[in-house]
């Protein structure tokens, strides 16, 4: 009775999933490079490898991060994952990303052991594990309220060639591709000739059919060392009708008010900069609102923390043992500036912060509805004052979806995500 014709929404066929990326990367015009040529760097790199342990961060390779290199004695190390699950790509500017992927039953696409090697530099490991941790979808009228991560692995969509332009498909479900991302830099010099370069990303994504929605779970690894995780919602609108107070009229006339709702996406990021020890999370604020002078304020998070966004606030994961050629500690910065910052009722306390920092615990996998026995159920409960020794970051980015006529089937993708940018990983411009 609740089910039939009145509440049933018939949608047109879902068209093949369209991924918003242009065809594969063509030969890129690489702009003028820094003084040190690749050959010289390779020699230096080999040197660094053979005498590795002796250089804890000294300026080994001139322009690049002098990160510690593990055991020098071993020859031809075996990668942590076999070829099908391995991504190892050197982008046109020489930056190299390596990682392993896994389609887990619960979290779906999970990336692990992410290592970045700047152009001509030595490798630095960034993330031990990174995955989606929840997509919470509360409707404006109060219900329904979905926690969309079920058994994600089983909802992965087999990708067609057209879904993965210019890339390679892995075991049907994962696309690995490269795509241009516009200007890496553009500068005119005094003679007017100028210098310019185009940047590119390694992109790894999978798509999941979660009810009406198709979610594209994407990770972009840039040639400048940045990582951009994002989720695109496409497929179909749920088709829930509501009153004009909680929806927007779509279709002909003003009879069908499509229910507004929010997609609250959570990511779990286990940073391990060159191993699990030594990682520290810092929060940066700039005091002096309404005055001419601004002052930097650094807060070191020594205990598990829940934090909210601020206009100029950012965080970074820094490892002081690992230094670049300028002797500055290597770090990755979290910029979470594109969130609608949904705040739910008291029984959804996990919605009340934009970033959580917890100490690593293997049973803490999802931000809500955590499936592990003898473990807290949501990320707000993971934060219980523990001292941080191996920090895990949980980033919450929200998108308020008020449907439009343009959202008719197949619904155009709406994206939400954040950026992880290197700060002092290389001593100079990574190009």
């Amino acid at each position, binding site marked *: 009775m*609740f*089910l039939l014709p009145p509440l*049933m*929404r018939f*949608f047109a*066929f879902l068209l*093949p999933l369209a991924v918003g990326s242009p065809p594969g990367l063509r030969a890129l015009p690489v702009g003028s490079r820094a003084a040190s040529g690749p050959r010289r760097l390779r020699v230096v790199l080999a040197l660094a490898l053979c005498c590795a342990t002796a250089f804890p961060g000294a300026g080994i390779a001139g322009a690049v991060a002098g990160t510690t*290199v*593990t*055991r020098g004695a071993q020859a031809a190390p*075996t*990668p*942590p*994952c*076999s070829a*099908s*699950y391995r991504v190892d790509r050197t982008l046109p500017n020489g930056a190299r990303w390596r990682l392993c992927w896994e*389609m*887990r039953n619960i979290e779906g696409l*999970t990336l*692990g*052991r992410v*290592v970045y090697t700047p152009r001509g530099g030595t*490798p630095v490991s960034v993330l*031990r*594990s990174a995955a989606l941790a929840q997509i919470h979808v509360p409707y404006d009228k*109060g*219900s*329904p*309220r*979905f*926690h969309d*991560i*079920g*058994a994600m*692995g*089983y*909802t*992965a969509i*087999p990708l*067609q060639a057209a879904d993965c332009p210019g890339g390679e498909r892995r*075991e*049907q479900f994962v696309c690995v591709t490269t795509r241009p991302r516009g200007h890496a830099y553009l500068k005119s010099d005094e003679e007017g000739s100028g210098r310019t370069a185009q940047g590119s990303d390694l992109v790894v994504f999978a798509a999941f059919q*979660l*009810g*009406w929605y198709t979610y594209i779970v994407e990770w972009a690894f840039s040639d400048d060392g940045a990582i951009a995780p994002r989720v695109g919602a496409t497929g179909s609108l749920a*088709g*829930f009708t509501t009153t004009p107070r909680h929806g927007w009229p779509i279709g002909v006339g003003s009879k069908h008010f499509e229910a507004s709702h929010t997609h609250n996406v959570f990511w779990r990021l286990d940073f391990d900069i060159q*191993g699990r020890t030594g990682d520290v999370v810092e929060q940066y604020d700039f005091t002096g609102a309404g005055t001419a002078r601004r002052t930097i304020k650094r807060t070191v998070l020594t205990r598990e923390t829940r934090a909210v966004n601020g206009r100029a606030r950012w965080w970074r994961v820094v490892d002081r043992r690992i230094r670049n050629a300028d002797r500055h500690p290597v770090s990755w910065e979290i910029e979470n500036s594109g969130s609608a910052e949904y705040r739910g*009722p008291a*029984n959804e306390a996990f919605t009340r912060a934009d970033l959580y920092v917890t100490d*690593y615990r*293997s049973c803490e996998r999802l931000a809500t*509805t955590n*499936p*592990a*026995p*003898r473990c807290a*159920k949501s990320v707000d409960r993971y934060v219980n004052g523990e001292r941080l020794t*191996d920090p895990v970051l949980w980033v919450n980015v929200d998108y308020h979806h008020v449907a439009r006529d343009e959202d008719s089937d197949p619904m155009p993708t709406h994206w939400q995500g954040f950026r992880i940018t290197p700060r002092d990983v290389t001593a100079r411009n990574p190009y």
Partner: protein
Amino acid sequence: MGRRRVVVAIVGAGAVAAAGVVLSFLPAERGPRAARAAGTAVSTPAPADPLTGAEIERAEAVASAVSRQAMSSGRVRLLYVERGDDKDPGGSGDGWEGGSSDGGHRLAEAYLYDYGTDTLTVRTVDLAGGRVVKETVSHGVQPPPSKAEELTAAELLLAHSKLGEGVRRAYALVAGGPPRSASDLGLRGLIFTPSQEEGGAATRCATHRCMRLFVRLPGGRWLDTSRIVVDLSAKKIHVLEW
């Protein structure tokens, strides 16, 4: 179009067994695991590789051994097996540069649910040793529904006096005839936990294993089943009011 057929076909592939011990092994035969098992067999997986088909089978057998009886009666089901991805306490390397890569010790976590007592048991299986090395049991923790559970939920829905008839009619409208079985429907289950906003008749779902079931008809259309909750512990359907 082709893709939808694939999805439906995948759902249909495991549908033959309606109950009994065979059911518990169904999850391994579908989804990403299916592709893996069908592909080239990786004899010795690397530390960060997903579980191989053989490893999943082994983990299922080891984790089920002590629950055989409860599983054959259908009271306990093995939901799925997930690779244990804990970091080694001393491990520091990511494995790329020849450092001490953790994960070399292959572990599998088998999720088993007891619908009679509403308890979740997770058994960690050491794949090399072929034995259970850790077991955690708890009430009130609901991991995502398995594929076999979605099918059971759809069977309960089809068996419901009013709602079942509704589903059949909707199906017949687009397919030209009623579904032969629950496996003809495209299914997607999400755990349902009652809250102040959504509860009503489904308050028993605070302890029971309950799910929302989304039903996709041939042609890709979804039924609005958002008010329907399937209680797997009580084998009942609740209808939410909001």
